[in-house]
């Protein structure tokens, strides 16, 4: 199924955390410009998928392969994956007091530009871009001066994630339960930010427990993840179906411990 046109190709991926198998044969191919939603019950491995793809410590790949743009993703360091175009919007963004948001963003953008052989931006150019990105997600410009996510509300953290995505211009964005803890207004802001970045090249994996985010970010495909693998795939209408029926029809084994951060 994978061909030259595939951006991300996951083949029979098995992964574990603290010697507990979480992903048990995950397969997924994503072409440029596609939006895939991954839905499923708690403990199915949704967040684990994002962590494994990004290369987080402690998330061990036991077998299988993942390529991004034809390159072996699993061989790369965390930062190399980012520079290769992978972006993970965290469910729980990390607070880093003492490092300003602006400094952090500049270092990240510089590192990625350098990895791609592009010229570094001047501070003035960068500041202008950052301010525009702030506006796009309705984040006051003063947040650039604050410590990374320090004292931000849940919604502000999520918007900060989307702002980073806008600045970093990744090829593949994984949004990990970006809707969790957001009210409708905040969700709309986040969704608008995401939609503004959709184009024929950029792809998305939208990980969510609920269907409502998908009213705003329309997926091309919806997959149901249960017990570490995709058990059903369909178009956007599958999400509606799930909303009505819940996940009980999946007949999963007794729920495993919630291992997702």
């Amino acid at each position, binding site marked *: 199924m994978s061909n030259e046109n595939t951006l991300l190709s996951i083949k029979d991926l098995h992964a574990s955390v603290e010697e507990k198998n979480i992903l048990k044969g995950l397969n997924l191919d994503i072409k440029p410009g596609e939006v895939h939603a991954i839905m499923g019950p708690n403990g199915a491995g949704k967040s684990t998928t994002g962590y494994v793809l990004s290369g987080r410590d402690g998330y061990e790949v036991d077998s299988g392969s993942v390529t991004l743009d034809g390159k072996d993703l699993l061989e790369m360091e*965390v*930062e190399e994956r980012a520079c290769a175009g992978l972006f993970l919007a965290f469910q729980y963004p990390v607070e880093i007091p003492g490092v300003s948001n602006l400094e952090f963003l500049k270092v990240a953008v510089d590192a990625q530009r350098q990895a791609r052989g592009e010229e570094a931006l001047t501070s003035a150019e960068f500041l202008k871009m950052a301010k525009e990105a702030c506006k796009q997600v309705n984040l006051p410009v003063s947040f650039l001066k604050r410590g990374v996510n320090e004292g931000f509300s849940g919604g502000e953290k999520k918007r900060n994630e989307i702002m980073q995505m806008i600045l970093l211009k990744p090829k593949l964005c994984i949004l990990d339960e970006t809707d969790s803890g957001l009210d409708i207004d905040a969700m709309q802001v986040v969704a608008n930010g995401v939609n503004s970045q959709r184009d024929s090249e950029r792809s998305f994996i939208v990980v969510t427990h609920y269907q409502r985010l998908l009213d705003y970010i329309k997926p091309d495909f919806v997959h149901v993840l249960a017990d570490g693998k995709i058990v059903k795939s369909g178009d956007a209408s599958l999400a509606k179906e799930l909303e009505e029926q819940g996940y009980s029809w999946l007949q999963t084994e007794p729920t495993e411990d919630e291992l997702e951060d």
Partner: protein
Amino acid sequence: MSEWLQQAIARADSIQDGFEDQRASSLALLKDIQWPTRKTEAWKYTPLRAVERSTAIFKEESPELEPVAVEGLEFLELTFVDGQLVSLPEELPEGLTIEMQESSLFATIKPERHVFGLVNDVLAADVAVVTVAEGVAIEQLLRINNLLSNGAQGHIRVVVDIKAGASLKVVENAEGQGASLTTAYTEYQIGAEANLEHYRFALQAGDNVAIGGSHFKLLEKASLNSSIIGFGSNLQRIDTDIIHAGEKADAKLNAIYLLDGTELFDLHANVEHAVPNCTTEENVRGIAGDSSRAVFNGRIHIHRDAQKTLAELNNRNLLMSNKAEINTKPELEIYADDVRCAHGATIAEIDRKALYYLQTRGVSRSQAQLMLSFGFINELIDQMPTAELAEWVRPIIRDRFAQMEVK
């Protein structure tokens, strides 16, 4: 008593020079001393196996060694190689003298309790006495180089007498190659209203064993600004004593240690407030990686008469690995009732979640590490009064830290 100490004593018995009286009393003390073990409080976390097993020898002939260059600075160099004084500055500024002669200050500032200080008393072959005449400010930095060739043993001693109203800047620089062993002690008397800007660099990671101390006696209104920066090694031990002996004296001590591999670094800092109205500010910060071990003991002793003392001691540490070890013990002993004192010690771990978060945005692990954790070290480097030294040492420290692995 250890075999190593017996050999040291035997050698000392054979040395003859102008310091015989003082050496004789140290030798007598040494012959009676208990070799430190793990039960000795001052050596509790620093086993002396590396000394006991050392094969470093007193060399008859030593290679020519040059101290490291520092961009933008020309030092007055006082250079020892394998314990022998090999070079003195050709010309000295007016008011500064360096002599190989008896000094009444020898072994009076360094307390007797330092076992290896006594060893140094009896084994240091060339004792250099540096004197700054009253009221003279020496602008050029004096650098005391303690260079050791591979496998060599050497003991160096410098006594510095800064007369009233004078000022001096001194850099103590140790560079020991291979499995060398050294003791290096300096004693400073800072006269009334005199001041000393002091640095002790021990950036010699590796198999070497280095034990030594910098000891300061401050007379009335004297001021001291000291920075101690060290890497660990097979055994790296520095003792510093700051003795406030005259009122309104002011001491500032900043220390940084940065350890990797299986290195050991031990800093014992002792401050004696014997008289009223003196101030001490002490900031000690360190990072321990891999399976290294850092030891810090910071004691401030405020005597009964030392009213209106202002003393602060702070020790902050960062652990980079589950196997690294930091033993920190701040001690305040206060016998006066009208003083302001504070002390604190913290040990933090590297924030792995924050590292990961930064990396997912494309920031390299080493740069992420620097962004998260170099600030608290950099702050002390920024405070070094001679900017050229700060600019020289900053990348050395930064690169070592950036390359440390999170384990």
